[in-house]
């Protein structure tokens, strides 16, 4: 499995008005790219354009893989809402993708994944019996189990406490190493910690921000991480 | 044993006495027939089944036969079950309608069968009335209740051997105007019809012979025959049917296979004059006497 680069060019429109662009966004293959920007800037729309699920948003341009082959079938998307199916237990929820493709991964594999996300022994519960942060982790587990070269994450850690967030970030960083990840987040510290590259979507334009020099996942309290966090925070405050 | 399928005109009731009695007494097997009797809910179905070859015989009404043959259905009368009209114009005995002429401006209910307008017109004519002088309402499912509750002043299509008894059982006295006494040519109420192209004269003749024997038994032994009929199905054993049995006995055709040519010719021309039939046919196209030399 080689992870393709991502390229989105052109202008996105919604409800008759320009959402962003014209712009040219590139995510190098096999890298983790963090995308920040004001609420309503179009980050989620951008992910949906790449995944091919943009509802009301239209793109006048192209959203495709760097290798020219179609993206369909190579993308996993973790949307901003968890989209858990209330009638399936957690194990079946995270295996739904496989089911939809007609394969059937073992329950043990699903249980193990839940385990690593701090949800040990909950595999037989229904989503209705979970807390907000637990639901978010199940949605992440489902995305990871998809095992795709391109992974699009929309605020995947926003409902987690500090400790869980760090642990889950590490876990995701390892699990997705070598894949092309586009990760939307509002947390500058998260971007500074995880991004091979960092992009800012504001005022309809994309702007690249230099990440800290060392390889992610970085220590949250390393000086480079903290200063990158500060820098990003300032940029975001200016962007608004 | 030859098989023969017979569709009645409606659910089993005393009108079907000869058939049930012949079945119960084994007269059918005596003539080498195994008869399957089918009871439908809608009287317009049986002739269709016979014409379509789904049944060997069907019980139907003479007026219907004329209409159906005129519309091109392959049907012919092969026997008679009840040889007088049963239909009557029913009113309350102490109601406002004491003679036909009293119907002017009143409501008459009917259950759609196709000929009641023509019948009523014929009955009104001697009194100097036309159907335009009164209002006709289709009351379909409830002939006698409509009269009893006073919603209509008369109904046409009631059966004289049932409806009067029925009303009497409810404590209401009814009265019948008989069509054949008021200008209508007499006709056979219940007849056996078959598809003229596919009918098997031999089996039907045997069937008619067995019912003829049953009618004779019934006339000779009214009480015994009633018991036989009432015991054939539990829901049949009631006061109404017991009375109807007595009232119907004299009306069964004593010679089921016999054909009165003139009767069919008269009714055909009556319907033609009433405008219900465009081109009248001769009796050969309507009815057969299976015993006649070919």
């Amino acid at each position, binding site marked *: 499995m080689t992870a393709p680069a991502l390229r989105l060019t052109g202008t996105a429109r919604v409800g008759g008005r320009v959402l962003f662009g014209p712009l040219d966004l590139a995510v190098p293959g096999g890298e983790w790219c963090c995308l920040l920007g004001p609420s309503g800037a179009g980050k989620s729309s951008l992910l949906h354009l790449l995944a091919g699920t943009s509802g009301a948003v239209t793109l006048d341009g192209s959203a495709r893989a760097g290798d020219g082959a179609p993206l369909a079938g190579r993308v996993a998307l973790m949307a901003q809402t968890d989209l858990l199916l209330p009638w399936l237990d957690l194990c079946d929820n995270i295996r739904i993708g496989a089911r939809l493709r007609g394969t059937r991964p073992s329950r043990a594999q699903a249980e193990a994944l839940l385990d690593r996300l701090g949800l040990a022994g909950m595999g037989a519960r229904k989503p209705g019996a979970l807390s907000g942060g637990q639901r978010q982790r199940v949605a992440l587990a489902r995305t990871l189990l998809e095992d795709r070269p391109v992974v699009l994450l929309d605020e995947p850690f926003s409902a987690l406490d500090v400790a869980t967030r760090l642990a889950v970030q590490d876990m995701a960083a390892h699990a997705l190493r070598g894949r092309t990840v586009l990760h939307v987040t509002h947390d500058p510290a998260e971007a500074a910690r995880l991004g091979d590259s960092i992009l800012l979507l504001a005022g309809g334009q994309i702007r690249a921000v230099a990440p800290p020099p060392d390889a992610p996942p970085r220590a949250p309290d390393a000086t480079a991480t903290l200063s990158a966090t500060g820098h990003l925070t300032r940029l975001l405050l200016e962007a608004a | 044993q030859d098989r023969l399928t017979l569709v009645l005109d409606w659910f089993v009731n005393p009108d079907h006495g000869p058939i049930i009695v012949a079945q119960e007494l084994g007269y059918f097997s005596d003539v080498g027939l195994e008869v399957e009797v089918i009871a439908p809910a809608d009287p317009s179905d049986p002739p269709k089944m016979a014409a379509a070859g789904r049944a060997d015989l069907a019980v139907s009404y003479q007026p219907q036969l004329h209409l159906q043959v005129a519309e091109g259905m392959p049907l012919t009368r092969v026997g008679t079950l009840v040889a007088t009209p049963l239909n009557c114009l029913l009113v309350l005995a102490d109601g406002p309608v004491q003679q036909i002429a009293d119907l002017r401006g009143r409501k008459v209910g009917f259950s759609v069968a*196709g000929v009641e307008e023509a019948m009523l017109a014929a009955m009104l004519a001697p009194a100097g009335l036309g159907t335009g002088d009164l209002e006709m309402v*289709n009351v*379909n*499912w409830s002939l006698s*209740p409509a009269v009893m509750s006073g*919603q209509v002043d008369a109904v046409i299509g009631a059966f004289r051997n049932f409806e009067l008894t029925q009303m009497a059982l409810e404590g209401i006295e009814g009265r019948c105007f008989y069509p054949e006494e008021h200008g209508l040519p007499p006709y056979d109420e219940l007849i056996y019809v078959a598809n003229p192209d596919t009918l098997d004269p031999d089996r039907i003749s045997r069937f008619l012979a067995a019912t003829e024997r049953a009618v004779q038994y019934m006339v000779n032994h009214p009480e015994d025959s009633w018991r036989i009929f009432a015991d054939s199905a539990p829901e049949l054993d009631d006061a109404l049917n017991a009375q109807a049995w007595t009232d119907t006995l004299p009306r069964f055709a004593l010679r089921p296979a016999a054909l009165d040519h003139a009767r069919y010719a008269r009714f055909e021309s009556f319907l033609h004059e009433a405008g*219900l039939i465009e081109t009248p046919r001769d009796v050969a196209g309507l009815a057969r006497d299976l015993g006649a030399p070919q």
Partner: protein
Amino acid sequence: MTALRLFLPVMLALALWQGAVTLLAMPPFILPDPLRVAGTLWTSRALLADHAMVTLTEVLAGLALGAGLGWISAVGLALSPGAARLLRPLLVFSQAVPVFALAPILTLWFGYGIGSKIAMTLLIIYFPVTSAFFDALMRPPAGWEAMARVMGGSPARILWHIRIPAALPGFLSGLRLAAVYAPIGAVLGEWVGASRGLGYLMLLANGRAKTDLMFAALLVLAVLTLALHRAVDRGCLALEARRLR
């Protein structure tokens, strides 16, 4: 395009019909072939139009009343669980009564005019509307109701502002069913006692062994039903689409 969409099902129906006649060797007095019925349709067009208008009036009145009453009943039942437990069996009961048992009662109350036909139509469509809407009202998304209770909403206002709008798809589902059943209700009403309308005409044609005319009337009834269902379906879809946009 729309013309084609309407045309294709009609063609398919005709093909099926002709196929049944030909392949199963249906005699014309049981199922006449389409061409023959088309001929009757044309020659009797004035008669059919006349009776169709009567039936249409009954259908529309019954549909409006039935949908309205069904709406009110479902809301009433949803408002009071006690009443629901008591009255729902009665509603079910009302559906178990066959027409011919009701006929004398209906005519006694409503006479032989349009009243008894509308009553019958209403009776037929009232239940699917009430049942489908009530079912939907009884499964509101949990979060909304809790929120509304915290906000101090009375049960009646929660019903009005939350449960009813949330259950709208269920009501519309019932309405679609009602659109299909309304014409059959009117026909049943005409059987109860009438001297006009498509149902009456069908009975008459059946009695006179005029199968062509009966099927012509049936065809008119079917087209009427289809048109009504289509109109209601369209209306429902438009409403559902618009209210979330």
